[in-house]
């Protein structure tokens, strides 16, 4: 649990005492705090229904859910782009409405990369520095640092519209870091990226967390949420369906299981396994064409797997395929909602020069 700050305007570190008077390391302060946020668009469409969230310094918090779950709405509220219909939220202790205090404290990369296709990579970083009121020399120095950090040197003079989706996304992340903020907000930072670019983005998010920042990011990819996040919010239909550490959430759906497919054998396999392992240990059976597929609890992991193999072979069945399966966040989501998260594949949110020069486009979703 994080340490609450003392009320006041000064810079205050939480003080914690240990028995015997020795000071304990101060717990990480809460940098992002939101309570019961709701958002209703056009008076009828309820995008968020009472979502609460907390991110401490050094924590990566994932907001995970399928398309239309309310992830982007949540992040746009935290980024001070749209107002919540109700609820409270604070960034580093400041209320969201205090935008002059909050905006210098956050670095944001939204789903739309937000780049001007005619501006070069270097110009973007320089302009971003100006938007954060860095002096000209300071903005140039910072731009050079970020170009180096995000390996954008080969693209520095290239218009953003001519860069690949991966480079655009890297630039978008670099722009979010121009003012070196303590809070980072990323909306689907890896959507539409190739595996190598995804890996780069993951590394960056991990580094930012280790760097002592609070990172809140939305994703529809449960694997990357599992890999990167210290804490997760699974949301669906604008509501939080589960929250906690990834391991805690996975524990809610049970431990590892052995999944085994067998060829046709001397009879039904389920009674045999129930007899030898106990009826509670056998989770289900699916008939397969010319065989069966069955799942068995494996609390002792590989030991239980070996035991299942032994029982099946001893009974006279031939194993077609066997695997020890750890529970995943997909299982958690499936258990909570009865449906799987189905990510949108390859949907890049970049832009190209044509989009800029045609200067057309549809109506914007009005905040």
């Amino acid at each position, binding site marked *: 649990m994080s340490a609450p700050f003392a009320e006041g305007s000064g810079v205050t570190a939480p003080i914690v005492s240990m028995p015997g008077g020795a000071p304990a390391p101060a717990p990480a302060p809460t940098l992002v705090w939101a309570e019961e946020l709701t958002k209703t668009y056009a008076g009828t469409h309820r995008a968020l229904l009472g979502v609460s969230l907390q991110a401490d*310094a050094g924590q990566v918090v994932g907001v995970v859910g399928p398309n239309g779950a309310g992830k982007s709405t949540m992040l746009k509220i935290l980024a001070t782009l749209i107002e919540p219909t109700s609820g409270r939220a604070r960034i580093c202790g400041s209320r969201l409405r205090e935008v002059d205090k909050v905006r210098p404290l956050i670095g944001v990369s939204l789903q739309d990369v937000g780049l001007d296709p005619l501006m070069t990579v270097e110009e973007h970083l320089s302009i971003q520095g100006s938007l954060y009121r860095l002096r000209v020399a300071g903005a140039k120095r910072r731009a050079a640092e970020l170009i180096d950090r995000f390996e954008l040197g080969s693209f520095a003079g290239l218009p953003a519209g001519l860069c690949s989706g991966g480079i655009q996304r890297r630039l978008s992340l670099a722009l979010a870091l121009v003012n070196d903020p303590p809070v980072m907000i990323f909306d689907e930072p890896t959507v539409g990226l190739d595996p190598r670019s995804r890996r780069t983005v993951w590394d960056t998010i991990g580094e930012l967390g280790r760097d002592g920042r609070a990172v809140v990011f939305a994703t529809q990819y449960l694997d990357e949420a599992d890999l990167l996040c210290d804490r997760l919010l699974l949301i669906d239909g604008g509501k939080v369906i589960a929250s906690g550490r990834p391991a805690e959430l996975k524990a809610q759906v049970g431990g590892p299981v052995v999944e085994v497919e067998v060829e046709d054998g001397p009879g039904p396999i389920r009674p045999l396994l129930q007899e030898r392992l106990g009826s509670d240990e056998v989770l289900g059976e699916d008939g397969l064409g010319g065989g069966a597929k069955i799942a068995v609890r494996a609390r002792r992991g590989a030991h239980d797997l070996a035991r299942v193999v032994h029982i099946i072979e001893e009974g006279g069945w031939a194993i077609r395929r066997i695997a020890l399966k750890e529970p995943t966040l997909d299982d958690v989501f499936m258990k909570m909602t009865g449906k799987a998260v189905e990510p949108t594949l390859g949907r890049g949110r970049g832009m190209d020069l044509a989009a800029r020069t045609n200067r057309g486009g549809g109506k914007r979703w009005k905040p």
Partner: protein
Amino acid sequence: MEALSPPGNAVGATVRTPVPLAGGRYQVVAALYRRAIREVTRVFITTTLVPLVLPVFMLVIFSRVFAAVVTIHGFRGSAGYATYLVPAVILMAVMLGSPTAGISTAVELQTGFFDRVQISPVGTAPNLTARRLADATRLGLFAVVLMIVARLDGVAVANWPLALFLAIALGAWWGVAYGGIALAVCLRSGSAETAQALVPLFFPILFMSTAFMPMALLPGWLQAIAHVNPVSHLCDGIRAALAGRWDGRALAEGAAGTAVLTLATQTLVWVAQKARRFA
């Protein structure tokens, strides 16, 4: 669900502090102005050349086709129809080129760049100011180009410094004020097409003024409109300067009308901008 603890008001000492805001707001506007000018040069054809095609055509061809109109009684004393048309084509050019700030803003809304600016500490106001200043620069350049074309076409200018100054200043001011309509519409709708759809509006504004015909030759009902149309007074003021005269009354009336338009369109922009602000 986990219990969440509400934090207090301070940023802890263990929390990294962001880079302090050091530069002044004028530096932000200057940087964004340079960006807007760079953008103009990168889409030079659409933002600068295309809006000049019709005015140059009017100045060179239209003035010859209708050259004989100066022999009509109401034109008595005019130096020629091309000279008469110079202020009209300058105002036509600035109106044709005025939607650029609006169109660029619509594109920024579509690409998400507008959001990026909006959530920065300076907000959207410096960007909109910079875009309008860049428009003023470009539209002032239109006046210079058309004055040069007019001179090459044989138009006699009695007082170059005065005529050029008034053409640039009044042309750019009128263009930026008029461009506020497109900017407000684009901010509200996020659609560049809406701004482009407004472009033909310049026709009635010019034709219901003394831009192409002197007041005496306009029908009575049109004279009433032309009297209150700032374009009439701007044209008369610039026309007098071309002839080497200072028409204080026309210039004052033209400036007053332009100021009213500026106030009206700036209010529209402000309202549209406010609708997009978080707080």
